[in-house]
């Protein structure tokens, strides 16, 4: 047993914390607020990371990365999420759009898309979910009809984060109907398109939500014209690409890191009020710290399996269940802690804002990026197939 991440990972963590302290505003609560300065701060921070080779450090060297170890990548995930993701929406481009383009893109697509992602200059959104295709992603209805040497895409996506600010969309649409030609299952006949969001055939409608602005949007495609050059990977085989995309995101965002930072920071933020909290509430706080450690170690187990090339889809499911519940449970404890302080208390104002933001966002933890029910289905299938 050795739970040390190694010297390179430790140094990176120190470096990232220094950069966050120096370049991220002290009252930062993420890039997606009503204040445009927050998005500007995130874009500035991305450029700072990019200049130091830290934005895409996991990428292979041939694409401008540093080929960093999985533990260095883990440190980046932890430190960024713990500090309210000061990369803004960049993690999407960096973590999976870029690697997918590396694997499936043409030379032209790689030259077009990878450098701007590596420089932190471009925001991507993900066109997957639809009104009738949530967890059942293969049931999507957005159609790409052949039109001369290209396609016309029509349909609707929903829950699309960052669509109002994105320059590009990683869009999945149906190119062959089930029952036509070789397409016999709904997982077949799907194709990935890389489409510019400034096309007039695309309309974005923000959805007001408790999570804050920019998190949820509807995106409408009305005969969007695309060409062969916009297709990523093989035609009609977009399902495989998405499965690969998901494999880049087995661990997903390091929710446990923000939970732990806020829980550990609570006594200092509360000052002398900490000792006045009910014993039972401080007991729940201690319990949440144990659950943070549990989720973190489960994440490391997934990373380790992935690194060894031994990961199966169900391997991350137990971790995802544990970490999403942790997110919500710790948010409840933190909300109860801060609720003991008068709302106009200046000393705890930022901590309160952090806690309230964390609570709002955590409510979606068991729904976003694969619902907890889907994780349970994956895990139970694996358990029943192989025994405990």
């Amino acid at each position, binding site marked *: *047993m*050795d*739970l*040390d*991440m*190694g010297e390179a990972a430790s140094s990176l963590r120190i470096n990232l914390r220094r950069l966050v302290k120096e370049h991220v505003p002290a009252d930062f609560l993420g890039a997606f607020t009503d204040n445009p300065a927050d998005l500007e701060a995130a874009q500035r921070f991305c450029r700072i990371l990019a200049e130091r080779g830290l934005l895409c450090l996991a990428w292979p060297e041939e694409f401008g990365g540093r080929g960093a170890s999985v*533990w260095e990548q883990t440190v980046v995930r*932890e430190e960024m999420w*713990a500090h309210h993701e000061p990369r803004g929406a960049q993690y999407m481009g960096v973590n999976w759009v870029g690697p997918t383009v590396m694997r499936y893109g043409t030379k032209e697509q790689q030259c077009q898309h990878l450098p701007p992602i590596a420089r932190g200059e471009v925001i991507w959104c993900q066109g997957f979910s639809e009104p009738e295709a949530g967890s059942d992603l293969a049931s999507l209805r957005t159609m790409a009809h052949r039109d001369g040497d290209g396609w016309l895409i029509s349909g609707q996506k929903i829950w699309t984060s960052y669509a109002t600010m994105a320059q590009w969309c990683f869009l999945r649409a149906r190119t062959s109907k089930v029952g036509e030609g070789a397409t016999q299952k709904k997982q077949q006949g799907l194709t990935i398109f890389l489409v510019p969001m400034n096309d007039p055939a695309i309309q974005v409608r923000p959805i007001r939500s408790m999570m804050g602005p920019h998190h949820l949007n509807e995106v409408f495609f009305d005969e969007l014209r695309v060409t062969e050059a916009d297709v990523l990977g093989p035609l009609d085989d977009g399902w495989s690409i998405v499965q690969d995309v998901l494999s880049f995101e087995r661990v997903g965002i390091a929710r446990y*890191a923000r939970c*732990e*930072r806020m*829980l*550990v*920071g609570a*006594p*200092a933020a509360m000052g002398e009020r*900490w000792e006045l909290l009910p*014993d039972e509430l*401080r*007991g729940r*706080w*201690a*319990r949440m*710290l*144990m659950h*943070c*450690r*549990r989720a*973190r*170690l*489960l994440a*490391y*187990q997934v990373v*380790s399996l992935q690194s060894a090339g031994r990961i199966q889809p169900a391997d991350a*499911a*137990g971790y995802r*269940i*544990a970490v999403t519940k942790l997110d919500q449970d710790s948010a409840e404890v933190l909300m109860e802690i801060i609720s003991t302080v008068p709302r106009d208390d200046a000393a705890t104002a930022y901590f309160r804002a952090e806690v309230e933001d964390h609570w709002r966002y955590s409510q979606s933890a068991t729904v976003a990026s694969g619902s907890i*029910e889907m*994780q*349970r*289905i994956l*895990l*139970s299938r694996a*358990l*029943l197939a192989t*025994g*405990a």
Partner: protein
Amino acid sequence: MILELCDDAGEYGRQALRAFSAAGGDELVQQAETKPEVRETLVAAVLSDLGAWDLEPRADPNDLEAAAALCRSAGYWALPYPVAERLARPTDLDLDGLIVVSDSAPEGAIGGLASRWGAVTLRGVRSRAVSTAATGPAFTVALDLTAIDTAGVGDVGLALVLPCWTLLGMLDRAMELTIAHIRLRKQFGQPLSAFQGVQFQLTDAEVERSGLEILAKHALWSLAAGTTAVDDALALRLAAIEAADVVFRVCHQLHGAIGFCDETTLSWLSRYSQPLRRLPFGLSATRDELTRRLGRHGLAGLFS
């Protein structure tokens, strides 16, 4: 980062599983229940053959991992002998085993055993311990303590961690038995495992079991590092009690009435898990103690 026990420890655990099976498996605890005084005789040979008492978990990190693997295998079979407590014996006292006890009601699952036992409180008070009453459920007895010294703080971590590995082995088995049962048992024309309500309960239990497993490994690493061992052991114990509550509740529910009958192993596992879950203190007292120790600094991790 290495998140698995070393190969030798893993193989040792598998050998122990086979050896306990060959020595009588599930029948061992059933025989011991009727005659607690034969507990030692029932398992002495198999433990000796495994070299259990040659392990030095306080001195050698590889032996520590092997000891943990042995405890897990003992838990799997609900072995009617306090293997973890024997392995936790202090190195500087002439004792056969060590039990962590509460200040108010010292008890241990050593009924029927003639060995020389020691006890230690969380604050490090060490005593000689002898049983004072007849053996109760799951071999528990009240202990009469004769103080030795107050130098036992360093003994506490291992003595808390190894029994959690025993409990982990019990949860492994309970899950295995339950999965086999719900595959086999049919209701409304299909196996119970086909019902999503059943599947989801199973996953909740597995998340707890696997969470305990990874924390148990972390606690071994912490013991070897020696920095925050007691805090980490208490955090592990809290996780172990929570996990046992969920896992046994789910496993009983999915077994239905048959799970309460002594013809099923679950009934034995469930009963014999009790001392590990209640002694030296249960869920609330464990959480209170952890909270007291964490103060304002929290559990060692990314930010403390």
